[in-house]
């Protein structure tokens, strides 16, 4: 074997790169090379966000108003949380069709317990426990017994609708009288709170970036250019600053002022942060991706595949309950029919954002971006006064398109053999 470096990178004979080499330009080139190979990541969703925002701003005078801007974020919060929840099972190439109704049933339990005088935090814990238990049972059926997740979660989707009816009696809406829960989607942080939130986000991102660089340097490894981190932080500061600024303006049409970042936003950001930390920096996260990529390889490496699968289903159901909590907070009532349709939007959001249905590929932030895309479509078409029918057709088309892109890019990244 002679020294055939199959790549353009100029390396000394003994050096193997780590992808951290080179200046900003090299890094950008490497990024586009990955995109070309089918690792598109957040690119399609980000593009769609920009195009849709431009389109709806042009078509509707109401789209870019302060009130609608805040509305969009609040509307997207619930879908974002559900999409994030679903990522954990999608990474295993599984699906949980029952996540929406499971959240509905859990919130029925919340309603019943709090109505009978149980303090709301205990009610909330009970609701989350319902999610944990349902997730465990689903995971057990899928991982231990081997029932396809599509079938067992469809069974739960139907069965839990029945449970909701039994719990709440026949039909109707039931008011949830818990101010703390109502506040999540309806109240806002004070003006300074929004800026504090932005500062915390920037500090945490910057701090973690610097810590990682420090660790690499201490091990004698090459770092990406520092300017890359600074550009990323500057980008976050500008976009985040813009969002906080607009949300801090008075968006009320009446005398009573409404301003500030909705309380739900820091909660969603915290969920994204913790979930991403779990997936990217812990053994569990690594093993989850491994099981999603090649279960047999994971098993041979000594990973407890069954345990990973069951845990993923438990996380999905529990986070879905949080999404259900947001829903109840917004509309203020529980009903037996809750959560029936939203789960498919959640799957759509994740896939549109770039989470692969074939497992092993995707990040939480992708699901969040996808949820923004779906929410903007929903919101924008609503403002144009088009019927709900059109909205469904468009969302369905977008999902079909995203799934196609997913399948094609998977072929591309898996099919090419270069030496």
């Amino acid at each position, binding site marked *: 074997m002679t020294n055939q470096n199959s790549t353009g*990178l100029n390396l000394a004979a003994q050096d*193997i790169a*780590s992808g951290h080499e080179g200046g900003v330009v090299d890094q950008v080139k490497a990024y586009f090379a990955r995109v070309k190979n089918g690792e598109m990541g957040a690119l399609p969703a980000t593009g769609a966000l920009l195009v849709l925002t431009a389109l709806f701003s042009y078509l509707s005078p109401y789209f870019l108003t302060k009130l609608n801007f805040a509305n969009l974020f609040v509307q997207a919060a619930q879908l974002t949380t559900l999409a994030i929840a679903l990522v954990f099972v999608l990474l295993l190439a599984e699906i949980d069709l029952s996540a929406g109704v499971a959240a509905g049933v859990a919130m029925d339990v919340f309603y019943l317990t709090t109505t009978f005088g149980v303090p709301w935090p205990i009610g909330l814990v009970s609701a989350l426990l319902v999610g944990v238990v349902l997730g465990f049972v689903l995971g057990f059926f899928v991982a231990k017994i081997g029932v396809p997740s599509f079938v067992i979660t469809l069974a739960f989707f139907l069965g839990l609708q029945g449970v909701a009816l039994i719990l709440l009696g026949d039909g109707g809406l039931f008011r949830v009288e818990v101010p703390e829960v109502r506040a999540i989607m309806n109240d806002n942080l004070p003006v300074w709170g929004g800026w504090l939130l932005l500062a915390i986000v920037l500090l945490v991102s910057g701090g973690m970036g610097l810590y*990682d660089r420090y660790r690499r340097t201490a091990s004698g490894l090459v770092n990406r250019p520092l300017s890359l981190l600074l550009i990323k932080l500057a980008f976050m500061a500008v976009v985040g600053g813009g969002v906080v600024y607009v949300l801090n303006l008075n968006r009320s049409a009446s005398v009573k002022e409404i301003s500030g970042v909705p309380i739900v936003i820091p909660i969603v950001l915290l969920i994204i942060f913790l979930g991403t930390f779990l997936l990217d920096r812990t053994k569990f996260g690594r093993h989850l991706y491994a099981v999603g990529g090649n279960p047999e390889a994971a098993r041979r490496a000594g990973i407890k595949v069954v345990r990973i699968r069951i845990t993923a289903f438990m996380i999905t159901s529990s986070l879905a309950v949080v999404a259900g909590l947001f829903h109840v907070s917004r509309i203020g009532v529980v009903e037996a029919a809750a959560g029936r349709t939203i789960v498919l939007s959640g799957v759509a959001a994740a896939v549109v954002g770039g989470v692969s249905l074939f497992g092993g590929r995707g990040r939480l932030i992708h699901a969040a971006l996808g949820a923004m895309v779906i929410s903007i479509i929903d919101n924008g078409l609503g403002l144009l006064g088009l019927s709900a029918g059109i909205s469904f057709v468009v969302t369905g088309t977008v999902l079909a398109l995203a799934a196609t892109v997913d399948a094609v890019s998977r072929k591309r990244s898996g099919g090419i053999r270069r030496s």
Partner: protein
Amino acid sequence: MSNPVIELRDVKKSFGPVEVLKGVNLKVYAGQVTALVGDNGAGKSTLIKGLSGVQPYDSGTVLFDGQEVDIHDPIQASQLGIEVVYQDLALCENLDIVQNMFLGREELLQKTLDEPSMELQATKALQSLSVRTVKSVRQKVSSLSGGQRQTVAIARSVLRNAKLVILDEPTAALGVAQTEQVLNLVQRLADSGVAVLIISHNLADVFKVCDDISVLYLGRMVTQIETTETTQNDVVGYITGTKSVED
């Protein structure tokens, strides 16, 4: 010659009435490449599965570094320092090279993944094998060629400080250039003091890289002979049963 890393004495294995291994002897030495050849059904896979602990032998003695051992599960085999690189490689395409090399053995720092340490060790393991075809250790395995994947799988065993590496048909799916790369890699692996056992159907490869050749024929070890003392024609004879050591 020094003591063998692994020695099998009169190893037997049956599946129901079918006796697959009928008393097999085998010695594999450190720093040497030993070939295990034989026609389909000769018992190669069964022999390997016994060594890797997947399917323990029924009877016979297994000596590891001169000590008698009873290998009854894969984890124990791995702890002894026996690593098997299967034909299908068992890599996760969605993970990068470092992540694959440390799969199931991730190193932690304060309960989170210690990426710099793993990246450094993976790089060193690849460098110790003089691997030059891999662009970046943070490349996803999906972007690697068959030969590069084989390289990663072999380097993984180096990382685990294996004393005996068993390669199952390492060149079966590879083109000419990549076969050459992998054979060189196998040579360097042996040069670093590891005992290597290769299962192969390709006698040209076997003669190129192996120090000695063991031939299984219908569950019996026909011969274990140094490569320099035999010819391809003779080995074919041993494999097909038209030639025996007495001839």
